[in-house]
Protein backbone atom coordinates (compact mmCIF):
# COMPACT_ATOMS: atom_id res chain seq x y z
CA UNK A 1 0.00 0.00 0.00
CA UNK A 2 2.95 2.32 0.53
CA UNK A 3 3.77 2.33 -3.20
CA UNK A 4 0.08 2.96 -3.87
CA UNK A 5 -0.01 5.92 -1.51
CA UNK A 6 3.18 7.21 -3.09
CA UNK A 7 1.68 6.84 -6.56
CA UNK A 8 -1.40 8.80 -5.56
CA UNK A 9 0.75 11.39 -3.83
CA UNK A 10 2.49 11.96 -7.14
CA UNK A 11 -0.82 13.07 -8.59
CA UNK A 12 -1.73 15.39 -5.73
CA UNK A 13 0.27 18.20 -7.20
CA UNK A 14 0.05 17.30 -10.84
CA UNK A 15 1.76 20.36 -12.19
CA UNK A 16 4.75 19.96 -9.95
CA UNK A 17 5.09 16.26 -10.57
CA UNK A 18 4.80 16.79 -14.29
CA UNK A 19 7.48 19.45 -14.14
CA UNK A 20 9.80 17.07 -12.33
CA UNK A 21 9.08 14.27 -14.79
CA UNK A 22 9.53 16.66 -17.70
CA UNK A 23 12.80 18.04 -16.39
CA UNK A 24 14.08 14.49 -16.05
CA UNK A 25 12.88 13.80 -19.58
CA UNK A 26 14.42 16.94 -21.07
CA UNK A 27 17.67 16.53 -19.16
CA UNK A 28 18.11 12.96 -20.31
CA UNK A 29 17.03 13.88 -23.80
CA UNK A 30 19.72 16.54 -23.99
CA UNK A 31 22.35 14.25 -22.52
CA UNK A 32 21.47 11.41 -24.85
CA UNK A 33 21.37 13.61 -27.90
CA UNK A 34 24.74 15.07 -27.04
CA UNK A 35 26.09 11.58 -26.62
CA UNK A 36 24.71 10.61 -30.01
CA UNK A 37 26.36 13.62 -31.62
CA UNK A 38 29.73 12.76 -30.17
CA UNK A 39 29.18 9.15 -31.05
CA UNK A 40 28.37 10.23 -34.59
CA UNK A 41 31.61 12.21 -34.77
CA UNK A 42 33.54 9.39 -33.26
CA UNK A 43 32.04 6.76 -35.50
CA UNK A 44 32.66 8.84 -38.57
CA UNK A 45 36.21 9.50 -37.55
CA UNK A 46 36.84 5.84 -36.92
CA UNK A 47 35.25 5.07 -40.21
CA UNK A 48 37.44 7.52 -42.05
CA UNK A 49 40.64 6.40 -40.44
CA UNK A 50 39.93 2.69 -40.78
CA UNK A 51 38.45 2.76 -44.25
CA UNK A 52 40.66 5.43 -45.84
CA UNK A 53 43.91 4.75 -44.12
CA UNK A 54 44.88 2.11 -41.61
CA UNK A 55 42.32 -0.68 -42.24
CA UNK A 56 41.61 -3.04 -39.35
CA UNK A 57 44.87 -4.95 -39.21
CA UNK A 58 48.35 -4.41 -40.55
CA UNK A 59 51.38 -6.70 -40.62
CA UNK A 60 54.96 -5.48 -40.59
CA UNK A 61 58.40 -6.67 -39.66
CA UNK A 62 59.08 -5.64 -36.07
CA UNK A 63 62.02 -3.46 -37.10
CA UNK A 64 59.92 -1.66 -39.66
CA UNK A 65 57.72 -0.47 -36.84
CA UNK A 66 60.45 0.10 -34.29
CA UNK A 67 62.69 2.14 -36.59
CA UNK A 68 60.04 3.45 -38.98
CA UNK A 69 62.23 2.00 -41.67
CA UNK A 70 60.76 0.66 -44.92
CA UNK A 71 63.79 -1.49 -45.70
CA UNK A 72 62.59 -4.35 -43.49
CA UNK A 73 60.21 -6.47 -45.51
CA UNK A 74 57.81 -9.29 -44.75
CA UNK A 75 59.40 -12.58 -45.84
CA UNK A 76 56.98 -14.65 -47.94
CA UNK A 77 54.38 -11.89 -47.84
CA UNK A 78 52.50 -13.55 -50.73
CA UNK A 79 51.94 -16.74 -48.78
CA UNK A 80 50.53 -14.88 -45.82
CA UNK A 81 48.38 -12.69 -48.06
CA UNK A 82 46.91 -15.63 -49.93
CA UNK A 83 46.05 -17.54 -46.80
CA UNK A 84 44.51 -14.56 -45.03
CA UNK A 85 42.35 -13.84 -48.07
CA UNK A 86 40.72 -17.23 -47.69
CA UNK A 87 39.33 -16.30 -44.28
CA UNK A 88 35.65 -15.50 -44.66
CA UNK A 89 35.81 -12.73 -42.06
CA UNK A 90 38.26 -10.82 -44.22
CA UNK A 91 36.64 -8.42 -46.66
CA UNK A 92 39.80 -7.50 -48.51
CA UNK A 93 43.56 -7.57 -48.06
CA UNK A 94 46.47 -6.08 -49.92
CA UNK A 95 50.23 -5.84 -49.79
CA UNK A 96 52.30 -2.71 -50.09
CA UNK A 97 55.78 -1.38 -50.12
CA UNK A 98 55.72 1.60 -47.81
CA UNK A 99 58.38 4.25 -47.44
CA UNK A 100 57.75 6.27 -44.30
CA UNK A 101 59.32 9.70 -43.92
CA UNK A 102 60.32 10.40 -47.47
CA UNK A 103 60.90 13.76 -49.12
CA UNK A 104 58.77 14.52 -52.15
CA UNK A 105 59.80 17.41 -54.33
CA UNK A 106 58.10 19.40 -56.99
CA UNK A 107 59.79 22.11 -58.95
CA UNK A 108 58.38 24.66 -56.54
CA UNK A 109 58.38 23.03 -53.14
CA UNK A 110 59.00 19.93 -51.07
CA UNK A 111 57.26 18.04 -48.27
CA UNK A 112 57.78 15.06 -46.00
CA UNK A 113 55.35 12.25 -46.82
CA UNK A 114 54.75 8.54 -46.63
CA UNK A 115 54.99 6.88 -50.01
CA UNK A 116 52.70 3.89 -50.41
CA UNK A 117 53.57 1.51 -53.18
CA UNK A 118 50.30 -0.23 -53.91
CA UNK A 119 48.60 -2.69 -56.21
CA UNK A 120 45.91 -0.38 -57.58
CA UNK A 121 43.24 -3.07 -58.01
CA UNK A 122 43.64 -4.51 -54.50
CA UNK A 123 44.03 -1.11 -52.91
CA UNK A 124 40.67 -0.11 -54.28
CA UNK A 125 39.00 -2.82 -52.26
CA UNK A 126 40.86 -2.02 -49.05
CA UNK A 127 40.98 1.77 -48.88
CA UNK A 128 38.65 2.74 -51.71
CA UNK A 129 41.27 5.13 -53.01
CA UNK A 130 39.74 5.06 -56.48
CA UNK A 131 36.41 6.34 -55.20
CA UNK A 132 38.07 9.26 -53.50
CA UNK A 133 39.73 10.59 -56.66
CA UNK A 134 38.64 14.15 -57.28
CA UNK A 135 40.61 14.69 -60.44
CA UNK A 136 42.65 12.80 -62.98
CA UNK A 137 43.00 9.05 -63.46
CA UNK A 138 43.72 6.05 -61.30
CA UNK A 139 47.32 5.08 -62.25
CA UNK A 140 46.64 5.14 -65.98
CA UNK A 141 47.39 7.35 -68.96
CA UNK A 142 51.12 7.75 -68.59
CA UNK A 143 54.21 5.99 -69.79
CA UNK A 144 56.25 7.03 -66.80
CA UNK A 145 55.66 5.97 -63.20
CA UNK A 146 52.25 7.32 -62.03
CA UNK A 147 51.52 8.93 -58.66
CA UNK A 148 48.23 9.73 -56.94
CA UNK A 149 48.46 12.59 -54.49
CA UNK A 150 46.20 14.28 -51.96
CA UNK A 151 44.64 17.44 -53.34
CA UNK A 152 45.85 19.42 -50.33
CA UNK A 153 49.41 18.24 -50.77
CA UNK A 154 49.31 19.15 -54.45
CA UNK A 155 48.31 22.66 -53.46
CA UNK A 156 51.17 22.82 -51.01
CA UNK A 157 53.64 21.60 -53.61
CA UNK A 158 52.08 23.92 -56.19
CA UNK A 159 51.80 21.04 -58.58
CA UNK A 160 49.08 20.25 -61.10
CA UNK A 161 47.93 17.09 -62.78
CA UNK A 162 50.62 15.77 -65.14
CA UNK A 163 53.23 17.52 -63.00
CA UNK A 164 56.50 15.81 -62.13
CA UNK A 165 57.76 14.89 -58.69
CA UNK A 166 60.89 13.31 -57.40
CA UNK A 167 61.25 11.19 -54.29
CA UNK A 168 64.55 10.12 -52.83
CA UNK A 169 65.20 7.37 -50.31
CA UNK A 170 67.68 4.80 -49.10
CA UNK A 171 66.99 1.38 -50.57
CA UNK A 172 67.53 -2.02 -48.94
CA UNK A 173 71.07 -2.04 -50.22
CA UNK A 174 71.81 1.26 -48.48
CA UNK A 175 72.15 3.22 -51.66
CA UNK A 176 70.40 6.53 -52.13
CA UNK A 177 67.83 6.36 -54.89
CA UNK A 178 65.92 9.14 -56.57
CA UNK A 179 62.79 8.28 -58.52
CA UNK A 180 60.66 10.44 -60.71
CA UNK A 181 56.84 10.22 -60.93
CA UNK A 182 54.12 11.92 -62.84
CA UNK A 183 50.99 13.01 -60.90
CA UNK A 184 48.01 11.40 -62.63
CA UNK A 185 45.31 11.70 -59.97
CA UNK A 186 44.30 13.77 -56.97
CA UNK A 187 42.30 12.37 -54.08
CA UNK A 188 40.38 13.71 -51.12
CA UNK A 189 40.00 12.33 -47.62
CA UNK A 190 37.89 13.50 -44.70
CA UNK A 191 41.11 13.02 -42.79
CA UNK A 192 43.35 15.92 -43.77
CA UNK A 193 46.44 14.46 -42.09
CA UNK A 194 46.17 11.62 -44.56
CA UNK A 195 45.49 13.87 -47.50
CA UNK A 196 48.51 16.03 -46.80
CA UNK A 197 50.88 13.29 -45.83
CA UNK A 198 50.42 10.32 -48.13
CA UNK A 199 51.16 9.74 -51.81
CA UNK A 200 50.37 6.56 -53.70
CA UNK A 201 52.54 4.96 -56.40
CA UNK A 202 52.63 1.48 -57.91
CA UNK A 203 54.28 -1.21 -55.84
CA UNK A 204 56.02 -2.64 -58.90
CA UNK A 205 57.67 0.73 -59.62
CA UNK A 206 59.07 0.99 -56.11
CA UNK A 207 60.06 -2.68 -56.00
CA UNK A 208 62.49 -2.14 -58.90
CA UNK A 209 64.54 0.34 -56.89
CA UNK A 210 63.92 -0.89 -53.39
CA UNK A 211 65.53 -4.33 -53.65
CA UNK A 212 63.53 -5.47 -50.67
CA UNK A 213 64.04 -9.18 -51.36
CA UNK A 214 60.35 -9.81 -50.59
CA UNK A 215 57.20 -8.58 -52.33
CA UNK A 216 56.10 -6.21 -49.55
CA UNK A 217 56.85 -4.65 -46.22
CA UNK A 218 53.20 -4.10 -45.25
CA UNK A 219 50.00 -6.10 -45.46
CA UNK A 220 46.71 -4.36 -44.73
CA UNK A 221 43.53 -6.26 -43.92
CA UNK A 222 39.98 -4.93 -43.93
CA UNK A 223 37.36 -6.98 -42.07
CA UNK A 224 33.69 -7.31 -42.81
CA UNK A 225 32.83 -6.84 -39.15
CA UNK A 226 34.82 -4.99 -36.53
CA UNK A 227 33.79 -7.52 -33.89
CA UNK A 228 36.06 -10.15 -35.44
CA UNK A 229 39.07 -7.92 -34.96
CA UNK A 230 40.62 -9.66 -31.98
CA UNK A 231 40.06 -13.15 -33.33
CA UNK A 232 41.54 -12.46 -36.75
CA UNK A 233 44.44 -10.55 -35.25
CA UNK A 234 45.24 -13.47 -32.97
CA UNK A 235 44.99 -15.93 -35.81
CA UNK A 236 47.34 -13.95 -38.02
CA UNK A 237 49.80 -13.46 -35.22
CA UNK A 238 49.80 -17.22 -34.68
CA UNK A 239 50.45 -17.74 -38.38
CA UNK A 240 53.42 -15.40 -38.36
CA UNK A 241 54.94 -15.14 -34.89
CA UNK A 242 57.99 -13.44 -36.44
CA UNK A 243 55.95 -10.48 -37.66
CA UNK A 244 54.10 -7.78 -35.81
CA UNK A 245 50.35 -8.01 -36.33
CA UNK A 246 48.58 -4.87 -35.10
CA UNK A 247 45.06 -3.53 -35.06
CA UNK A 248 44.08 0.07 -35.75
CA UNK A 249 44.14 0.67 -32.02
CA UNK A 250 47.87 0.09 -31.93
CA UNK A 251 48.49 1.61 -35.33
CA UNK A 252 46.70 4.84 -34.55
CA UNK A 253 47.09 5.48 -30.83
CA UNK A 254 46.22 9.14 -31.31
CA UNK A 255 42.85 8.09 -32.70
CA UNK A 256 42.31 5.97 -29.69
CA UNK A 257 43.19 8.88 -27.44
CA UNK A 258 40.70 11.14 -29.18
CA UNK A 259 38.05 8.47 -28.89
CA UNK A 260 38.77 7.93 -25.21
CA UNK A 261 38.75 11.59 -24.30
CA UNK A 262 35.54 11.96 -26.26
CA UNK A 263 33.72 9.48 -24.11
CA UNK A 264 35.20 11.15 -21.06
CA UNK A 265 33.85 14.53 -22.06
CA UNK A 266 30.54 12.95 -22.86
CA UNK A 267 30.28 11.50 -19.39
CA UNK A 268 31.33 14.76 -17.80
CA UNK A 269 28.61 16.54 -19.75
CA UNK A 270 26.01 13.99 -18.76
CA UNK A 271 27.26 14.19 -15.19
CA UNK A 272 26.64 17.94 -15.19
CA UNK A 273 23.13 17.43 -16.55
CA UNK A 274 22.41 14.82 -13.90
CA UNK A 275 23.74 17.10 -11.16
CA UNK A 276 21.41 19.87 -12.29
CA UNK A 277 18.56 17.38 -12.36
CA UNK A 278 19.37 16.15 -8.89
CA UNK A 279 19.45 19.66 -7.55
CA UNK A 280 15.98 20.26 -8.94
CA UNK A 281 14.63 17.00 -7.60
CA UNK A 282 16.03 17.56 -4.12
CA UNK A 283 14.37 20.96 -4.01
CA UNK A 284 11.05 19.77 -5.30
CA UNK A 285 10.86 16.76 -3.04
CA UNK A 286 11.86 18.83 -0.03
CA UNK A 287 8.98 21.12 -0.85
CA UNK A 288 6.65 18.17 -1.20
CA UNK A 289 7.78 16.83 2.16
CA UNK A 290 7.64 20.13 4.01
CA UNK A 291 4.15 20.99 2.85
CA UNK A 292 2.99 17.62 4.17
CA UNK A 293 4.59 18.04 7.58
CA UNK A 294 1.34 17.52 9.49
CA UNK A 295 0.36 14.51 7.49
CA UNK A 296 3.75 12.87 7.91
CA UNK A 297 3.64 13.67 11.63
CA UNK A 298 0.23 12.05 11.86
CA UNK A 299 1.48 8.97 10.00
CA UNK A 300 4.37 8.50 12.38
CA UNK A 301 2.12 9.24 15.35
CA UNK A 302 -0.29 6.46 14.44
CA UNK A 303 2.56 4.04 13.96
CA UNK A 304 3.92 4.20 10.44
CA UNK A 305 7.50 3.08 10.73
CA UNK A 306 10.19 5.46 9.58
CA UNK A 307 11.45 3.07 6.96
CA UNK A 308 8.02 3.06 5.37
CA UNK A 309 7.79 6.84 5.44
CA UNK A 310 11.24 6.89 3.89
CA UNK A 311 10.19 4.38 1.27
CA UNK A 312 7.08 6.39 0.48
CA UNK A 313 9.08 9.51 -0.37
CA UNK A 314 11.52 7.41 -2.37
CA UNK A 315 8.72 5.78 -4.31
CA UNK A 316 7.24 9.12 -5.20
CA UNK A 317 10.51 10.17 -6.76
CA UNK A 318 11.00 6.86 -8.49
CA UNK A 319 7.59 7.15 -10.11
CA UNK A 320 8.41 10.56 -11.50
CA UNK A 321 11.73 9.29 -12.78
CA UNK A 322 10.10 6.22 -14.29
CA UNK A 323 7.68 8.48 -16.13
CA UNK A 324 10.31 11.01 -17.11
CA UNK A 325 13.21 8.78 -18.13
CA UNK A 326 11.44 6.72 -20.83
CA UNK A 327 9.83 9.89 -22.15
CA UNK A 328 13.28 11.44 -22.42
CA UNK A 329 14.57 8.33 -24.16
CA UNK A 330 11.69 8.41 -26.61
CA UNK A 331 12.34 12.08 -27.42
CA UNK A 332 16.03 11.31 -27.78
CA UNK A 333 15.40 8.34 -30.03
CA UNK A 334 13.05 10.24 -32.31
CA UNK A 335 15.32 13.26 -32.57
CA UNK A 336 18.40 11.13 -33.15
CA UNK A 337 16.61 9.25 -35.90
CA UNK A 338 15.50 12.45 -37.58
CA UNK A 339 18.74 14.40 -37.22
CA UNK A 340 20.73 11.23 -37.88
CA UNK A 341 19.18 11.10 -41.31
CA UNK A 342 19.67 14.75 -42.25
CA UNK A 343 22.92 15.26 -40.36
CA UNK A 344 24.25 18.35 -38.61
CA UNK A 345 26.20 20.57 -40.96
CA UNK A 346 29.36 21.89 -39.39
CA UNK A 347 30.85 23.29 -42.57
CA UNK A 348 31.71 26.50 -40.76
CA UNK A 349 34.06 24.64 -38.44
CA UNK A 350 34.97 21.90 -40.87
CA UNK A 351 38.50 23.08 -41.61
CA UNK A 352 39.52 22.50 -38.02
CA UNK A 353 37.61 19.30 -37.58
CA UNK A 354 38.80 17.49 -40.64
CA UNK A 355 42.38 17.43 -39.43
CA UNK A 356 41.12 15.11 -36.71
CA UNK A 357 39.44 12.96 -39.30
CA UNK A 358 36.04 14.53 -38.87
CA UNK A 359 33.64 15.14 -41.63
CA UNK A 360 31.74 18.40 -41.95
CA UNK A 361 28.37 16.72 -41.55
CA UNK A 362 27.76 14.77 -38.36
CA UNK A 363 25.17 12.06 -38.23
CA UNK A 364 24.18 11.46 -34.62
CA UNK A 365 23.76 7.79 -33.79
CA UNK A 366 23.61 5.78 -30.61
CA UNK A 367 23.58 2.10 -29.82
CA UNK A 368 20.58 0.81 -27.87
CA UNK A 369 22.58 -0.05 -24.78
CA UNK A 370 23.48 3.61 -24.27
CA UNK A 371 19.81 4.55 -24.07
CA UNK A 372 19.41 2.03 -21.30
CA UNK A 373 22.56 3.24 -19.62
CA UNK A 374 21.49 6.87 -19.62
CA UNK A 375 17.93 6.05 -18.54
CA UNK A 376 19.43 3.98 -15.73
CA UNK A 377 21.74 6.82 -14.73
CA UNK A 378 18.78 9.21 -14.72
CA UNK A 379 16.70 6.98 -12.51
CA UNK A 380 19.67 6.36 -10.23
CA UNK A 381 20.24 10.12 -9.95
CA UNK A 382 16.58 10.62 -9.06
CA UNK A 383 16.75 7.95 -6.39
CA UNK A 384 19.94 9.46 -4.98
CA UNK A 385 18.40 12.90 -4.81
CA UNK A 386 15.32 11.57 -3.01
CA UNK A 387 17.42 10.35 -0.11
CA UNK A 388 17.86 13.71 1.55
CA UNK A 389 14.17 14.74 1.40
CA UNK A 390 13.16 11.27 2.59
CA UNK A 391 15.58 11.53 5.43
CA UNK A 392 14.17 14.94 6.29
CA UNK A 393 10.70 13.40 6.36
CA UNK A 394 11.58 10.69 8.86
CA UNK A 395 13.53 13.08 11.03
CA UNK A 396 10.38 15.04 11.77
CA UNK A 397 9.09 14.73 15.30
CA UNK A 398 5.38 13.91 15.34
CA UNK A 399 4.55 16.38 18.11
CA UNK A 400 6.15 19.26 16.34
CA UNK A 401 4.60 18.22 13.07
CA UNK A 402 1.15 17.98 14.62
CA UNK A 403 1.51 21.25 16.46
CA UNK A 404 1.73 23.07 13.15
CA UNK A 405 -2.04 22.66 12.94
Amino acid at each position, binding site marked *: *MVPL*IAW*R*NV*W*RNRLRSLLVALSIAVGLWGGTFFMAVSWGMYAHQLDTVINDQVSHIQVHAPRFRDDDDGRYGIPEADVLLDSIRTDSRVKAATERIVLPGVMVQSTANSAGVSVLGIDPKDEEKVTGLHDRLTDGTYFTGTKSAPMVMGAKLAQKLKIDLRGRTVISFLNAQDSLVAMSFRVVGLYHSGNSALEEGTVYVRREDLARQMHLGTPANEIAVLLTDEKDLDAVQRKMQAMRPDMRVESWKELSPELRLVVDSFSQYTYIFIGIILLALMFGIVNTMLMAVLERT*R*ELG*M*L*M*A*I*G*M*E*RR*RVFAMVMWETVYMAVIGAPLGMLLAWVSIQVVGRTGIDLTAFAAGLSSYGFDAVIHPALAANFYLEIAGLGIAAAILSAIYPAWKAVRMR*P*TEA*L*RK*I
Partner: protein
Amino acid sequence: METPVIETRGLTRTYDADTVPVHAVNGIDLRVEKGEFTAIIGPSGCGKTTLMNMIGGLDEPTAGHVLIDGEDIGHKSANAMIAYRLHHIGFVFQAYNLIPVLTALENVSFVMLLQGVKKRERQQRAQELLASVGLMDKLDKRPNELSGGQQQRVAVARALASRPRFVLADEPTANLDSHSTNDLIDLMAELNRKDNMTFLFATHDQRVIDRARRVVTLEDGRIVKDEKRG
Protein backbone atom coordinates in the same frame (compact mmCIF):
# COMPACT_ATOMS: atom_id res chain seq x y z
CA MET B 1 -6.52 -3.28 42.94
CA GLU B 2 -6.44 -3.83 39.18
CA THR B 3 -3.53 -2.38 37.17
CA PRO B 4 -4.72 0.85 35.57
CA VAL B 5 -4.56 1.11 31.78
CA ILE B 6 -2.81 4.46 32.10
CA GLU B 7 -0.85 5.67 35.02
CA THR B 8 1.38 8.72 35.30
CA ARG B 9 3.73 9.32 38.20
CA GLY B 10 5.05 12.81 38.84
CA LEU B 11 4.80 13.48 35.13
CA THR B 12 6.54 16.71 34.22
CA ARG B 13 7.36 18.47 30.99
CA THR B 14 9.30 21.69 30.95
CA TYR B 15 9.89 23.69 27.80
CA ASP B 16 13.10 25.65 27.73
CA ALA B 17 11.79 28.93 26.49
CA ASP B 18 14.25 31.71 25.74
CA THR B 19 13.55 33.56 28.94
CA VAL B 20 11.82 31.51 31.66
CA PRO B 21 11.21 27.77 31.43
CA VAL B 22 7.55 26.84 30.92
CA HIS B 23 6.28 24.03 33.14
CA ALA B 24 3.63 22.84 30.69
CA VAL B 25 2.94 19.72 32.75
CA ASN B 26 4.01 19.92 36.34
CA GLY B 27 4.01 16.73 38.39
CA ILE B 28 0.85 14.98 37.33
CA ASP B 29 -0.23 11.73 39.00
CA LEU B 30 -3.16 10.25 37.12
CA ARG B 31 -4.69 6.77 36.99
CA VAL B 32 -7.12 5.75 34.30
CA GLU B 33 -8.83 2.39 34.72
CA LYS B 34 -10.04 0.18 31.92
CA GLY B 35 -13.35 1.30 30.46
CA GLU B 36 -13.19 4.85 31.70
CA PHE B 37 -14.61 7.70 29.64
CA THR B 38 -12.52 10.61 30.85
CA ALA B 39 -12.23 14.21 29.81
CA ILE B 40 -9.19 16.33 30.54
CA ILE B 41 -10.30 19.92 30.60
CA GLY B 42 -8.93 23.32 31.32
CA PRO B 43 -8.24 26.60 29.62
CA SER B 44 -6.09 26.81 26.55
CA GLY B 45 -2.41 26.48 27.42
CA CYS B 46 -3.03 24.57 30.67
CA GLY B 47 -1.05 21.56 29.39
CA LYS B 48 -3.71 19.19 28.03
CA THR B 49 -1.95 18.46 24.75
CA THR B 50 1.43 18.12 26.38
CA LEU B 51 -0.01 15.59 28.84
CA MET B 52 -1.80 13.64 26.12
CA ASN B 53 1.32 13.55 23.96
CA MET B 54 3.40 12.10 26.77
CA ILE B 55 0.76 9.50 27.54
CA GLY B 56 0.67 8.63 23.85
CA GLY B 57 4.44 8.29 23.67
CA LEU B 58 4.74 11.18 21.22
CA ASP B 59 6.72 13.31 23.61
CA GLU B 60 9.19 12.51 26.35
CA PRO B 61 8.71 13.71 29.92
CA THR B 62 11.29 15.92 31.55
CA ALA B 63 10.64 13.96 34.73
CA GLY B 64 8.26 11.28 35.93
CA HIS B 65 6.87 8.19 34.27
CA VAL B 66 4.10 6.95 32.04
CA LEU B 67 2.96 3.40 32.65
CA ILE B 68 0.68 1.60 30.22
CA ASP B 69 -0.82 -1.54 31.72
CA GLY B 70 1.86 -1.24 34.37
CA GLU B 71 4.72 -1.05 31.90
CA ASP B 72 6.92 2.03 31.89
CA ILE B 73 7.07 3.22 28.28
CA GLY B 74 10.06 5.50 28.83
CA HIS B 75 13.50 4.53 27.54
CA LYS B 76 12.18 3.15 24.28
CA SER B 77 14.01 4.02 21.12
CA ALA B 78 12.15 6.22 18.62
CA ASN B 79 11.49 3.25 16.37
CA ALA B 80 10.32 1.04 19.22
CA MET B 81 8.01 3.84 20.30
CA ILE B 82 6.45 4.03 16.85
CA ALA B 83 5.80 0.29 16.94
CA TYR B 84 4.40 0.60 20.45
CA ARG B 85 1.96 3.28 19.40
CA LEU B 86 0.93 1.25 16.39
CA HIS B 87 -0.05 -1.76 18.47
CA HIS B 88 -1.31 -0.24 21.72
CA ILE B 89 -2.64 3.27 21.28
CA GLY B 90 -5.42 4.72 19.16
CA PHE B 91 -5.22 8.39 18.22
CA VAL B 92 -7.86 10.90 17.18
CA PHE B 93 -6.50 14.36 16.48
CA GLN B 94 -8.27 17.63 16.00
CA ALA B 95 -7.60 17.59 12.26
CA TYR B 96 -5.42 15.99 9.61
CA ASN B 97 -6.25 12.55 10.87
CA LEU B 98 -6.55 10.91 7.51
CA ILE B 99 -4.36 10.21 4.54
CA PRO B 100 -5.91 12.42 1.86
CA VAL B 101 -5.13 10.11 -1.04
CA LEU B 102 -6.76 7.06 0.54
CA THR B 103 -10.46 6.25 0.74
CA ALA B 104 -12.20 5.86 4.08
CA LEU B 105 -11.87 2.10 3.81
CA GLU B 106 -8.18 2.29 2.90
CA ASN B 107 -7.49 4.72 5.71
CA VAL B 108 -8.96 2.34 8.26
CA SER B 109 -7.25 -0.73 6.87
CA PHE B 110 -3.91 1.08 6.55
CA VAL B 111 -3.07 0.77 10.27
CA MET B 112 -3.88 -2.92 10.11
CA LEU B 113 -1.58 -3.21 7.13
CA LEU B 114 1.14 -1.60 9.20
CA GLN B 115 0.40 -4.20 11.86
CA GLY B 116 0.76 -7.00 9.35
CA VAL B 117 -2.88 -8.11 9.36
CA LYS B 118 -3.85 -10.20 6.35
CA LYS B 119 -5.69 -8.47 3.55
CA ARG B 120 -8.99 -10.31 3.83
CA GLU B 121 -9.18 -9.68 7.56
CA ARG B 122 -8.21 -6.03 7.11
CA GLN B 123 -10.90 -5.52 4.57
CA GLN B 124 -13.57 -7.13 6.66
CA ARG B 125 -12.68 -5.38 9.88
CA ALA B 126 -12.39 -2.00 8.21
CA GLN B 127 -15.87 -2.44 6.78
CA GLU B 128 -17.28 -3.48 10.13
CA LEU B 129 -15.70 -0.52 11.84
CA LEU B 130 -16.94 1.94 9.25
CA ALA B 131 -20.39 0.38 9.55
CA SER B 132 -20.26 0.83 13.31
CA VAL B 133 -19.47 4.55 12.90
CA GLY B 134 -22.34 4.84 10.43
CA LEU B 135 -20.34 5.29 7.24
CA MET B 136 -21.12 2.09 5.40
CA ASP B 137 -22.14 4.14 2.37
CA LYS B 138 -18.90 6.18 2.34
CA LEU B 139 -16.34 3.39 2.11
CA ASP B 140 -14.90 4.59 -1.18
CA LYS B 141 -14.94 8.28 -0.43
CA ARG B 142 -11.73 10.17 0.08
CA PRO B 143 -11.44 12.55 3.05
CA ASN B 144 -12.10 15.65 0.95
CA GLU B 145 -15.41 14.12 -0.15
CA LEU B 146 -16.51 13.73 3.50
CA SER B 147 -17.83 16.32 5.94
CA GLY B 148 -15.73 17.26 8.96
CA GLY B 149 -17.91 15.10 11.20
CA GLN B 150 -17.63 12.13 8.85
CA GLN B 151 -13.86 12.53 8.71
CA GLN B 152 -13.68 12.41 12.50
CA ARG B 153 -15.82 9.27 12.51
CA VAL B 154 -13.40 7.65 10.09
CA ALA B 155 -10.62 8.74 12.43
CA VAL B 156 -12.39 7.02 15.33
CA ALA B 157 -12.79 3.87 13.25
CA ARG B 158 -9.13 4.06 12.30
CA ALA B 159 -8.12 4.53 15.96
CA LEU B 160 -10.01 1.39 16.89
CA ALA B 161 -8.76 -0.66 13.95
CA SER B 162 -5.48 -1.51 15.61
CA ARG B 163 -7.30 -2.91 18.67
CA PRO B 164 -5.55 -0.44 20.99
CA ARG B 165 -5.46 -0.50 24.80
CA PHE B 166 -7.10 2.91 24.81
CA VAL B 167 -7.96 5.83 22.56
CA LEU B 168 -6.45 9.29 23.00
CA ALA B 169 -8.48 12.09 21.46
CA ASP B 170 -7.05 15.61 21.61
CA GLU B 171 -9.78 18.15 20.92
CA PRO B 172 -11.59 15.78 18.56
CA THR B 173 -14.59 18.08 18.17
CA ALA B 174 -12.83 21.41 17.97
CA ASN B 175 -13.51 21.77 14.26
CA LEU B 176 -17.09 20.42 14.31
CA ASP B 177 -20.50 22.04 14.42
CA SER B 178 -22.74 21.18 17.37
CA HIS B 179 -24.69 18.52 15.51
CA SER B 180 -21.56 16.66 14.44
CA THR B 181 -20.09 17.14 17.90
CA ASN B 182 -23.07 15.41 19.46
CA ASP B 183 -22.92 12.60 16.93
CA LEU B 184 -19.23 12.01 17.53
CA ILE B 185 -19.48 12.03 21.30
CA ASP B 186 -22.51 9.70 21.05
CA LEU B 187 -20.43 7.39 18.93
CA MET B 188 -17.51 7.34 21.33
CA ALA B 189 -19.78 6.86 24.31
CA GLU B 190 -21.47 3.99 22.54
CA LEU B 191 -18.14 2.31 21.70
CA ASN B 192 -17.09 2.84 25.30
CA ARG B 193 -20.21 1.21 26.63
CA LYS B 194 -20.42 -1.61 24.10
CA ASP B 195 -16.75 -2.66 23.95
CA ASN B 196 -15.57 -1.25 27.27
CA MET B 197 -12.98 0.73 25.27
CA THR B 198 -11.10 3.27 27.36
CA PHE B 199 -11.29 6.84 26.05
CA LEU B 200 -9.22 9.74 27.25
CA PHE B 201 -9.95 13.04 25.60
CA ALA B 202 -8.73 16.57 25.98
CA THR B 203 -11.40 19.17 25.35
CA HIS B 204 -12.78 22.50 26.36
CA ASP B 205 -16.09 21.87 24.64
CA GLN B 206 -18.92 21.94 27.20
CA ARG B 207 -21.04 19.49 25.21
CA VAL B 208 -18.29 16.92 25.42
CA ILE B 209 -17.56 17.66 29.06
CA ASP B 210 -21.21 17.09 29.90
CA ARG B 211 -21.03 13.56 28.53
CA ALA B 212 -17.81 12.52 30.27
CA ARG B 213 -18.05 10.18 33.22
CA ARG B 214 -14.91 11.54 34.78
CA VAL B 215 -13.58 15.05 34.41
CA VAL B 216 -10.01 15.97 35.26
CA THR B 217 -9.36 19.71 35.37
CA LEU B 218 -5.89 21.11 34.75
CA GLU B 219 -4.53 24.49 35.55
CA ASP B 220 -0.98 25.53 34.80
CA GLY B 221 0.09 21.95 34.32
CA ARG B 222 -1.38 20.62 37.54
CA ILE B 223 -4.55 18.71 38.36
CA VAL B 224 -6.82 21.02 40.30
CA LYS B 225 -9.99 18.93 40.24
CA ASP B 226 -10.83 15.29 39.50
CA GLU B 227 -14.51 14.36 39.65
CA LYS B 228 -16.25 11.11 38.81
CA ARG B 229 -19.89 11.13 37.76
CA GLY B 230 -22.71 8.59 37.69
